[in-house]
């Protein structure tokens, strides 16, 4: 298969370019010009990274909940004035979000790419990959992203602004976000990987952040997208997914009920892609619009990635066959396999 016709290869190239731009972008656009690009980019990259070219939208949301909404309530000033910055941030977020919808997760997000990279490393090291998580685990994990968004991004910063919680909780989500540690380490800055002993609140937050980062790295070697499943940005994207122009569309066929290859290919284990009989837009809350389900659908046009009404990429039996072979070849080479072949005597090999 020509790699340039392989959607996963194309996506990987876009991810590499996006990672380089978002994590090291100030090298291109200038150290301080970077902050003019956006303060509400719907991708998980970080203001803590001194080389980044944009800010994650969750940062202004947290600060505005604390310093604008919370403080305007506690000071008795106009709530409308407090809410206005939040609405502005939401507006700028949506302006960009409309363009690519949840494809930001699957194609742009640096942390998403980092986890996929871990999966590649794990596979090449010969660590056995988990195809899918059990449905029970997936179901239990799904509400966590909404809790992360509601509690860490909105509620705790608001309580902090109201004076009911510590000021250290203004950036509650950032304090535990693995992207903060990942992007800063990626630019050679170790200052965000720390244990903070200043007070019990920051102590708990710093321990949670470090532990979560370590666990994400280990799980990422064998499990697909471990952190994406609980990411608050996934929830924020899910809330507005109907306004985005990019979408996953299904035209169910009678064979859909038997096959299930699409759900198996999905890195977020959305089994509903396979089971739903709905026709039209099926961009599920956990979907990252990576397109793997479309790639591994063997029936003509049953699954499609569409931009507005235009099909961008459609399932086809021919592509499916080539893609399956390419995947087999890709997975057949591992470091462990290479090492055992090297160590086995020539006669055995013969």
């Amino acid at each position, binding site marked *: 298969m020509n790699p340039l016709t392989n959607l996963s290869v194309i996506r990987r190239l876009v991810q590499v370019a996006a990672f380089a731009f978002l994590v090291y972008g100030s090298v291109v656009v*200038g*150290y*301080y*010009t970077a*902050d*003019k690009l956006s303060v509400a980019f719907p991708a998980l990259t970080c*203001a*803590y990274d*001194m080389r980044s070219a944009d*800010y994650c939208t969750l940062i202004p949301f947290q600060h505005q909940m604390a*310093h604008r909404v919370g*403080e305007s309530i*506690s000071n008795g000033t106009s709530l409308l004035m407090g809410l206005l910055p939040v609405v502005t941030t939401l507006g700028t977020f949506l302006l960009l979000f409309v363009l690519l919808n949840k494809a930001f997760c699957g194609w742009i997000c640096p942390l998403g790419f980092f986890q996929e990279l871990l999966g590649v490393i794990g596979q090449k090291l010969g660590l*056995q990959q*988990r195809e899918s*998580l059990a449905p029970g685990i997936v179901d239990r994990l799904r509400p966590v992203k909404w809790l992360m968004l509601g509690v860490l991004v909105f509620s705790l910063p608001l309580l902090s*602004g109201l*004076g009911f919680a510590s*000021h250290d909780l203004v950036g509650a989500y950032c304090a535990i976000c693995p992207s903060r*540690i990942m992007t800063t380490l990626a630019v050679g800055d*170790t*200052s965000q*990987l*720390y*244990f*903070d*002993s*200043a*007070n019990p609140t*920051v102590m708990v937050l*710093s*321990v949670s952040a*470090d*532990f*979560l*980062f*370590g*666990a*994400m*790295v*280990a*799980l990422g*070697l*064998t*499990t697909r997208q*471990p952190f994406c499943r609980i990411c608050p940005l996934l929830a924020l994207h899910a809330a507005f997914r109907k306004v985005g122009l990019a979408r996953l569309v299904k035209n169910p066929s009678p064979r859909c009920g038997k096959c299930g290859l699409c759900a198996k290919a999905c890195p977020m284990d959305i089994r509903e892609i396979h089971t739903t009989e709905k026709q039209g837009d099926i961009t599920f809350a956990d979907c990252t619009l990576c397109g793997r389900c479309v790639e591994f659908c063997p029936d003509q046009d049953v699954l499609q990635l569409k931009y507005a009404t235009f099909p961008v990429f459609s399932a086809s039996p021919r592509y499916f066959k080539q893609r399956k072979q390419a995947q087999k070849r890709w997975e057949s080479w591992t470091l462990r396999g290479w090492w055992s072949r090297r160590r086995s005597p020539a006669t055995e090999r013969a």
Partner: protein
Amino acid sequence: MKTLLAGLLASGCCVSVALAQPPAHGDAAAPAAETGQKPAGGHAGHGGGRRAKMLMLANADGARITYWKPDLTRMELSAEHGHLTLPPTGMDNYHALVVEQDWGPEKDTLIRYEYSFGKPSGHSPAELTAAVKTELEVVPDPIPREHYRYMAADRWSFLVRYQGQPLAGTPVLLATSQGSRLEAVTDAAGRVTFRLPDDFPEVEAGRENNTPAELSVTASHREDGLEFVTVLTAPYHADPAHWQSFPTGVAIAGAGFLVGGLVGFRRRHDNKKRGSA
């Protein structure tokens, strides 16, 4: 008068943030601001919020005081009884305070970059630092971005420019209000880099429990019989390494890695068992 100003410049005490400045983050910081024991609080660039800031200015009688907005428009200010009020401009981002004192054979300049909140200015602080604001300037290169600030033990660079051109081979003095002094000479690009002194006498755990100190970066240059002296002042904070531990952070991340690895291993093991059954 001239001697006094020069002396103050060298010790880096010419301008300091007044304790009357309103706290940025609610009542918790209020008593601290009044007593001067704690900083105004907040994160980098958030101190002072959208309200007017008050600075104390020594030896500025007759000085020309210019306040540069992020869009490079300017306003003239005047100090009263050694107090200078920086009015809110409604514009977000760094502003530059430039105080020029002409003594005849010597011209002294003091520059300080202050962050103010407001509507997005649409201008990069790089435009403000690049603008020629006076003959001789010490320019932060770069100026700290959001979530960053000058901190003890960090390395930061400064450019020395005369009439907008880099000045190579110029001696530069970094002095702190804690009494440290460092000297260096600019390179061919007019740049000098200092590792800020970790000289806070008593450090308490937590950034907001430590009052920031003042640093000044001073350079001088003689041209056509005139002596130009310039100083950049800025607050700097205690090194968080005093209460944050990188090795412990690595150890906790390592524990997370082990637990994550164990969970992954157990799931694979369970899957295998299910598969063989």
